Structure formats: structure tokens, C-alpha cells
């Protein structure tokens, strides 16, 4: 934690920060205070993230049978996961196909939510002039989140089904003779539901970045003769980058781990990394489930590392 932040938070406690020192010299060292302030968060982080994560990694190297964990070292969780992958080359094995499919869905959802989210944020930040309307409209974006995401997901089914509203509408207008089958239980419906569920996670951070852009920069660009497009590419997008990256991290981490939406909207026929973990857990194969969780974590971590290479979030914040 930086000195500046500390001074703002508790100026009296830091030696040499104004009058407080003269009045009442403190015996606590600044570094101790820093630890004290960061401590609660660190403990929460340790107890609810690092320790469970360590357990997952440890269990992923245990052995198992039908009904129990055998706490001795074994790579079986991993070897079972990649079973037959070398022999099948050049064809992809199950796990390879599953991850490729998950990545594909993840990329599509990311690209679409980014595109839609960017323009919603742009509209809120630059076109809506009054602060009240900005607040009001951003609140409007949260309304879908007032219901459970399972309900929002299932609501698509009567709409997209074989005898659903969309199909019967199209049939009535005479545009099609047979119901369109790929509307439901397909990659299309999965991506549609995921975009519907997660675009908001893009809007908020991007809006947050855009609102902080100094308007005089845009005026300066305009004065210097830049076109609207040039201003967008050279001023607004670079300055919105932190929001874009944070939004992307939200969307990517959620979609990579999702198996409920993919299951329901894909008619349980589309494999997902999260689904493999669920099946393993249901079959009481906890080490294999843990191994798959570790693999998923590593892949997601790699994607996020690549993204933060593009934008130094720490610096931008």
C-alpha cells in the first residue's frame, strides 16, 4: 500500500505527517500500520481463496476409487483427463475438443459483449448529457439482474423452441415453411443467452473508464481537425482500455467456468470445461474433478495474463 493512500486514510498515524506527530508521537511503525490495514482483506483472501485453492491443487494429485479419496500421490486425475490424446493425434481427444469448444464460445461471447457493451457505455458516457439520466439509464441496465439468471436463461426456451414465438411468427409471415431448428439447443442459443446474461459486466467498467475521460481532450482532438472516427480510435478507445480489460476479465472468467447456461441452452449436448468437472464430481471422482479445475484455472490465468500484457491495469488505475 502506498504512502499517499495511507496518509489520506489516517494522516495522524504516520510520522512526519503534519501536526499529529508533535502532539502525540506514535510508537507504531508505518509498515506495521500498512500490514494492519491490509490485514483483514489478506486474511479473507487467504481463508476463502488461497487455502481452498491449495486444497484443490493437492486433491488433484490424490488417488481415488468408487467411494473415497485415497490421500497418496497420484497423477491419475491428470492422466485420465488426457487419456488417449497422444494416440488419437492428429485428431483432437475429448478434453482437447471440449476446451476448444469452450474457448470458441468464450471468444464469441467476449467479442459480442465487448461490441455491444462498448456502444452502450459510449452512449451513456457521451450522448446522455445529464448526470441524472446517466444514473437512471445505468440503473435500467441492472433491472434484468433483479431476477435469477436461471429464470432469464429459461425464458428463452418458449421463445426459440420449435413451436416457440419466433418460429410461429416466421411461419405466419410465410418466410419459412418448416420451423428453424437451430434457434434452440445450439451454439447460437448458448451464445445468445450468455451475451444476454453478461453484457452488463462489460458496460459498467467501460462506462466507468469513459466517464473519467477529460472532455477537453475530445474538444482538443476536434479542434485539431480529427474526424469522429479518428477521435474514437486515437483518444476514446485508448483511454477506455482499463475498462475494456476489466470487463473482458469478468466475461472470460465467467464463461470459461460456466456449465449451467451451456447445459440448459445447448440441450446438454455441448461439452464445456465446467461440465466435465460437474460430471466428475457427480461420479464422486473428486481428484479428477480437481485436476480439471486446475487445468481450467491455468488456461483462464494464461488468457488474463495475455490481456494484462496489452494493458498495464495497475498503471492505468
Amino acid at each position, binding site marked *: 500500500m502506498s504512502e499517499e493512500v495511507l496518509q489520506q486514510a489516517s494522516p495522524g498515524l504516520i510520522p512526519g505527517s503534519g501536526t499529529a506527530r508533535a502532539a502525540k508521537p506514535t510508537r507504531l511503525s508505518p509498515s506495521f500500520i500498512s500490514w494492519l490495514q491490509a490485514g483483514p482483506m489478506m486474511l479473507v483472501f487467504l481463508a476463502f481463496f488461497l487455502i481452498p485453492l491449495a486444497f484443490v491443487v493437492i486433491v488433484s494429485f490424490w488417488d481415488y476409487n*468408487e*467411494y*473415497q479419496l485415497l490421500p497418496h500421490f497420484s497423477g491419475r486425475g491428470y492422466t*485420465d483427463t488426457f*487419456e488417449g490424446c497422444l494416440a488419437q493425434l492428429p485428431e483432437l481427444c*475429448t478434453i482437447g*475438443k*471440449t476446451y476448444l*469448444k469452450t474457448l470458441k464460445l468464450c471468444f464469441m461471447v467476449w467479442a459480442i459483449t465487448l461490441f455491444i457493451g462498448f456502444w452502450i457505455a459510449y452512449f451513456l458516457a457521451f450522448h446522455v448529457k445529464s448526470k441524472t439520466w446517466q444514473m437512471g439509464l445505468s440503473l435500467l441496465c441492472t433491472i434484468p439482474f433483479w431476477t435469477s439468471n436461471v429464470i432469464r436463461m429459461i425464458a428463452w*426456451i*418458449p421463445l426459440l*423452441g*420449435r*413451436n*416457440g414465438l419466433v418460429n410461429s411468427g416466421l411461419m405466419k409471415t410465410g418466410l419459412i415453411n418448416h420451423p428453424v*431448428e437451430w434457434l*434452440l*439447443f445450439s451454439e447460437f442459443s448458448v451464445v445468445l443467452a450468455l451475451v444476454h446474461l453478461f453484457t452488463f459486466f462489460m458496460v459498467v467498467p467501460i462506462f466507468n473508464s469513459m466517464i473519467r475521460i477529460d472532455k477537453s481532450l475530445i474538444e482538443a482532438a476536434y479542434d485539431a481537425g480529427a474526424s469522429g472516427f479518428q477521435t474514437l480510435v486515437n483518444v476514446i478507445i485508448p483511454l477506455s482500455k482499463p475498462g475494456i480489460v476489466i470487463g473482458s476479465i469478468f466475461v472470460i472468467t465467467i464463461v470459461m467456468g460456466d456449465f449451467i447456461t451451456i*447445459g440448459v441452452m445447448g*440441450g*446438454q*449436448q*455441448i*461439452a464445456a470445461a465446467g*461440465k*466435465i468437472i460437474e*460430471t*466428475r*464430481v*457427480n*461420479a*464422486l*471422482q473428486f481428484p479428477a474433478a480437481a485436476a480439471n479445475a486446475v487445468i481450467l484455472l491455468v488456461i483462464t490465468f494464461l488468457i488474463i495474463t495475455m490481456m494484462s500484457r496489452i494493458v498495464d491495469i495497475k498503471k492505468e488505475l
Partner: protein
Amino acid sequence: MTETTRTTGVSRRTLLKGTAGLAGLAAGSGAITGFPYVKSADAKVLRYLGTAVNEGDDIAKQCLKDTGIKIEYITATTDDVTKRVMTQPNSFDVLDTEYFSLKKIVPSGNILALDAKKIKQFDNITPVFTKGETPGGKKIGGQGTAPWKVLYLEGKDSKKFATSATEFVTLIPTVYNADTLGIRPDLIKRPISSWSELLNPEFKGKASILNIPSIGIMDAAMVVEASGKYKYADKGNMTKEEIDLTMKVMTEAKKAGQFRAFWKDFNESVNLMASGETVIQSMWSPAVTKVRSMGIACTFQPLKEGYRSWASGFCVSKGVSGAKLEWAYEFVNWFLSGYAGAYLNRQGYYSAVLSTAKAHMEPYEWAYWMEGKPAEKDIKAPDGSLLEKAGAVRDGGSYEDRMGGVACWNAVMDENDYMVRKWNEFIAA
């Protein structure tokens, strides 16, 4: 201003009255004299872990009325029930689970076998469980984890199944049924008589099976055998080669677009069928009833190759002892004494002790549900809603015909681990 004062006055008086009342109540109940346990000993509570099948509010209410035992339901899916037995055996008292789960649960040592001598109706339990035959003497198919293979333990704390009858029973049977395919006769418009129809290209994009590997693969095996591709020694215990073969047939069908979707729970299967997304699929009997109660034609279609059956029953957690264990026996005895059995029979399931259930049912109900006769009067569900009009005949006919037609039982295979991996491949294909 006056409003406020008045409100305060009233609430203070009420509060005083309330406190006095509470004090009086406490004195009256004896709590104040220092014997609080006198009260708590009366509250007979059993935590009951199981799937939703047996867990009716009416059953719990009737049980409290008849025995004073309060049932606290903990509802989970079959997989989650097993998981909970493994990881939190002290979080429940009575366990209601399926026989096929026993192959996982018994070796874990987390459950206690019940003593057959303390079960009053044990000798009246249907021979389906004890001998593998119907009361009328029809031999029942034993492929898979048939209940009679895992009904007894060698000893009280044994983790091994006994080959002949002993005193120690793994699960006291409660409910069972014979499952088959559900179809939409209004959309298929021709008779369906074989499991092989599930993979008939005629129903391309309109078929479904359930995405629970251990049950789904049994349905797949019924299809493979029905289509004459292969004859299994035991569909419920395949070799690796047999698993590969079965999954190959299924994968080819999936790649050809045979399946509209897979389902994982009761409601999903109802929605698929009711919305017309599928016209033929694996289904559970009450799900078919549910579709029908929505005014949509749906048949639980008997097929010539027979049924895939399942059964569940009661045991207790290893942590249960003393008075609680006695209540558990009291509860199990009550469950077999008729009310619950009749309740289950009226839902289309079967009860373990037929004679007591019969005594709790009207003769016309018994004739419809158990004897396969046309309904003399309208048939009502336990909640009073209309299930079938007078004159209707139950799908699959009588108890003898249905249970006598069972070909195999839900199972956990020796190669379960391999099977689950292959199932994942099938889903990913």
C-alpha cells in the same frame, strides 16, 4: 403527535403482557424449574435425506399424526444423495436411496444396516425384492444392480453383500417402478413397440435420453440389443469393449443429429415433451403423468424388450443410535403400514408391501393401478386433481405384467469410471 404516543402506549402494554405470558408459559411447561429436557424428549425428529420421490408433505403430516415423529426432509438428486453420504454422514438420520447406489455407499461404511427382525412387515415385502419374482411367480430380469443381489449384508458391520438371506438388510424397500420410453402419440401417429425406435432416423432431431450416465447407458444398451446389433451378458455390468460399442452407436446417432437435447431432471423432461421439442424419449412415469395433466397426449409406452427398473429403500446413518434408532425403526414400520404405500401407488409408483397398501386404497383404485383394469370411476392424484377419466386403462397394464416385464435394473458397473469418461466423450462428440 397523539398518534405516536398512543402507539407507544399500546406497544408497551402489549410487550408487558407478552412477557408475562411467556413467563407463565415457561413456568407451566416446567422449563423454569430446571428440567428443560422433559420437553425436548418429546420432540421426535428425524432428518430424512433422499430424492423427491418419497418425500411428500402429506406423508410427513400423516406420520407426525400417527407416530409423533417429525420428519425433516433434505431433498437432493440421486448423485447428490450419494455425495452427501460420503462426505457428511452425520448430516442426516434416515437415508432414502436407490439400490444401485449401494455399491458405492456400503463399502464406505457410512450407513448402518437395519435388523430385519425389527421390521414388522418384512415377511410381507413383495417377492420382487426378496426372490426376484412377481407375486404371481413371473421371473424378473436380473441384469444390473437388481435389489435381491444387494439386499443383505454378511454381518451387522460388514461391508460385503451376503449371497443368501441374513438378518441385516441394507435397504428396507419402499418404492420402485418399471421405466420405459415416453412418446407423443399425437405426433408419432403409429404404434411404437421397440426400444430401437429411439434411434430410428424417422425421429431425427426429435429424440432424447437422459444425461445421467449410469441410467442413460442402460437405455442405450436396451436400444442396441433391440436393434439386434449386440447381445450383452449383463447390460448393467459391461466390459470396456461393450461400453465402447454402446457409446459408438450413440455417438453416431448424435453426430447424425438424432437427439434434440438431453435432459437431467424431471422438469426438463416434461418441458421437452410438452413443448413438442421431442416426440420420443427416456422418461419417468410421473413425468408422463405430468405432461398428460397439462392436456397433452403422452404415453408411457410398454415395449416388447421390457422395462428398465429401479428401486429405493431406507437405511440409517452410522451415527444413529439409542432412542433415535428406535424412532427410525418406528418410522420405517409406519412407512410400510399402508398409508405411504397407498400414497405412492396412487402416483403410479409401486409400494413394497402390497397388502397394507391395498387396505388403504379403494377397490376401484386398486383395480386401476395394480390390476390393470379399466377405471370404474375417475382416478384422482393424491392432491385431489383428476388424473384419468373413468374407463381409462393404465399404460403397461397390471403390476404382474409390468414388473414381470422388467429386463434390467439401474446399475453401477465395475467399469463405472471408464464409462463416465466415455460418456463425457459422447457429450463432446
